[in-house]
């Protein structure tokens, strides 16, 4: 019985020790330590390399990289913003930047480089990159980090087996369909795997057809436009072909996994995933390649070409507007050197213009030369990723409605009309 009380005493002291030990934990407020929060594990090493380079130049400042997964990143960032405990530097995504910037959470970085050049941003970054980093007021709230495009990934072996020529810049939607059909007939494998996704799916087709999801001044949705409706019907209709799995399949098997296990011949992929795909599927190297997106053969307007280009940026909280330690690190992140290191990691294309090839040449390490330059070529006709400040509120609801169309719970016309309504309601609510 004495043992028990001794055990209790030991436990109590352990609890006490624990709570004291916790005080030694990392904290954002320490001078000389900058915390940087990101969501992509694949980019951890690249970010660490930038942090190391900065530390070498500024030995009294250490940058601590923290990686969270995508969903939790935003849950946590919002909670942190609400309680005024944002990390020093964090990645911003176009889905959220307007929400954060317009609500005064982010520091205005428009004049970050004034000591260097007042035209630094426009000199070194494209219009799309800058608009991905702007608030609704046109001010810059993040240092552009990277820019991306969406391309077509295809299985060379299946094309060879079916006797179909590889996809190239002459391809249109018609080729996509006919090649898929032939491959399915000859090899029994799926053709182009079209699944419910926006950036890696229907957005590209909508803009190729001259349609839009949001109008230019972001005051109305475009799901009531003929060009948008036609493109949506084409894209959703792809799943009715035998050569395309249905949405139930994709709910259980990600298209990338279906592709790399040899179940299907084509799918859309963003350039930011290519490096991990090369590394994670070494036995597939040489058996697949990438091409530009097929064009729309008879667009409602435009030349039928488009690819969605998104871009992240590095932001800091409004309270750091005059924190020179943080601002100097941000300046480094947007510098030629900081962007070059990022490109060399091979995970993201630097937003800094002229450094696109640092990313392309990162793929030289592999025996098989993937045709990655198609991703940088597509910047010529890329379209800015869809965003407005109410996007976080409508994003998941649009997905739900789209899934209802796929499952047949609503017919496509009603579904698209509902999607239009959902976005317009969200816009009205955000403004009112």
């Amino acid at each position, binding site marked *: 019985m004495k043992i028990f009380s001794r055990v209790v005493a030991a436990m109590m002291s*352990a609890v006490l020790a624990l709570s004291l030990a916790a005080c030694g*934990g*990392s904290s954002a407020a320490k001078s000389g330590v900058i915390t940087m929060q990101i969501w992509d594990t694949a980019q951890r090493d690249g970010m660490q390399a930038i942090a190391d380079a900065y530390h070498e130049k500024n030995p009294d400042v250490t940058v601590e990289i*923290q990686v969270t997964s995508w969903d939790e990143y935003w849950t946590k960032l919002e909670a942190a913003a609400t*309680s005024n405990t944002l990390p020093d530097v964090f990645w911003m995504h176009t889905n959220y930047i307007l929400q954060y910037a317009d609500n005064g959470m982010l520091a205005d970085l428009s004049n970050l480089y004034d000591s260097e050049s007042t035209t630094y941003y426009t000199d070194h970054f494209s219009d799309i990159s800058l608009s991905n980093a702007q608030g609704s007021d046109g001010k810059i709230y993040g240092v552009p980090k990277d820019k991306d495009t969406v391309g077509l990934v295809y299985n060379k072996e299946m094309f060879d087996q079916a006797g179909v020529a590889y996809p190239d810049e002459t391809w249109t939607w018609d080729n996509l369909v006919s090649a898929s059909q032939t491959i399915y007939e000859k090899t029994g494998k799926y053709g182009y795997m079209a699944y419910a996704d926006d950036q890696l799916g229907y957005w590209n087709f909508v803009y190729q057809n001259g349609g839009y999801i949001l109008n230019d001044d972001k005051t109305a949705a475009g799901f009531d436009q003929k060009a948008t409706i036609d493109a949506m019907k084409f894209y959703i209709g792809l799943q009715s072909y035998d050569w395309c799995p249905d949405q139930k399949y994709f709910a259980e098997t990600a298209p990338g996994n279906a592709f790399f*296990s040899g179940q299907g011949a084509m799918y859309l992929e963003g350039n930011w995933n290519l490096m*991990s795909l090369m590394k994670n599927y070494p036995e597939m190297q040489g058996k697949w390649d990438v091409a530009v997106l097929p064009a729309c053969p008879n667009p409602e307007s435009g030349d039928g070409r488009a690819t969605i280009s998104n871009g992240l940026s590095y932001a800091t909280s409004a309270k750091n507007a005059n924190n020179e330690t943080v601002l100097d690190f941000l300046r480094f992140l947007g510098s030629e050197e900081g962007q070059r290191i990022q490109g060399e990691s091979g995970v993201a294309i630097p937003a800094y213009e002229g450094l696109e090839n640092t990313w392309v040449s990162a793929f030289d390490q592999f025996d098989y030369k993937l045709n990655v330059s198609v991703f940088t070529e597509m910047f010529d006709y890329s379209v800015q990723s869809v965003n407005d400040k109410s996007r976080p509120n409508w994003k998941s609801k649009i997905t739900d409605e789209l899934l209802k169309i796929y499952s047949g719970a609503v017919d496509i016309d009603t579904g698209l009309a509902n999607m239009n309504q959902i976005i317009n309601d969200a816009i009205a609510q955000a403004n009112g």
Partner: protein
Amino acid sequence: MKSEKSLQRSMQLNKVLTYFFLILGAVIMIFPFVWMLLTSLKTLAESMQVPPTILPANPVFENFTYAITSLPFFNLYMNTILLILFRVICAVVFSSMAGYAFAKLNFRFKGFLFGLILVQMMMPSQIFIIPQYQMLAKLSLTNSIFALVFPGLVSAFGTFFLRQSYMGIPKEIGEAAYLDGCNQWQTFTKVMAPLTGTSVAALTVFTAVFAYGDLMWPLVVNTDITMMTLSSGLATLKGQFTTNYPVLMAGSLLAMIPMLILYLIFQKQFVEGISMTGGK
């Protein structure tokens, strides 16, 4: 004679049925683990073959390599063990105290205070996540073991559970101790608490399982992968490899191993503990 025989026969039948159900159940319980192992040894292409192969054609070990390079398993093991340890200590110590008081002592507002315990059990834990995160963020305590333990510092369920257990101890035992000159604290620590061994053992297991299974809290409160637990680490792996099941299965197996070893060691004592204290 005849009834003796039929009795024996029915005993025999009983035995057969008992074993039949036990073995059937055991197969159902074990099969997912077997499948986990078999899948982890296949290539992605083989895992998605139709019809599936049961045994891997050529066992490969790359999936384990991917899992190990993607997750810092050593940190995850340590964090999980520390999380479990501290949550169990807190739950057992504080719940024993409160459970004893609610079961055996009289005080004002007892009904109301016990109501607070019961109502807490009805609250879904998701509503605590953001406020608790903000408390820790304001104290700059995120990214620490303490942050992991924080929501489990006290346990309403533990209090309720141990109160039930103290209720089962006859009043006379406490009164005897009191007459022997023990004060309330001594009665509790020296006489009553040792009698709840079974329940404390059960509470230990439950608290450990709850803590181990907690998925979202570690993901939210601890940003750094080196400060996560096995559950949240696996969720991260899933985020990375989506539906590449061979890698996910390899990761799951790696996450299981140390817990399995601990459990196999602990299990014997646990079961013995139950049977020993169970004799009344």
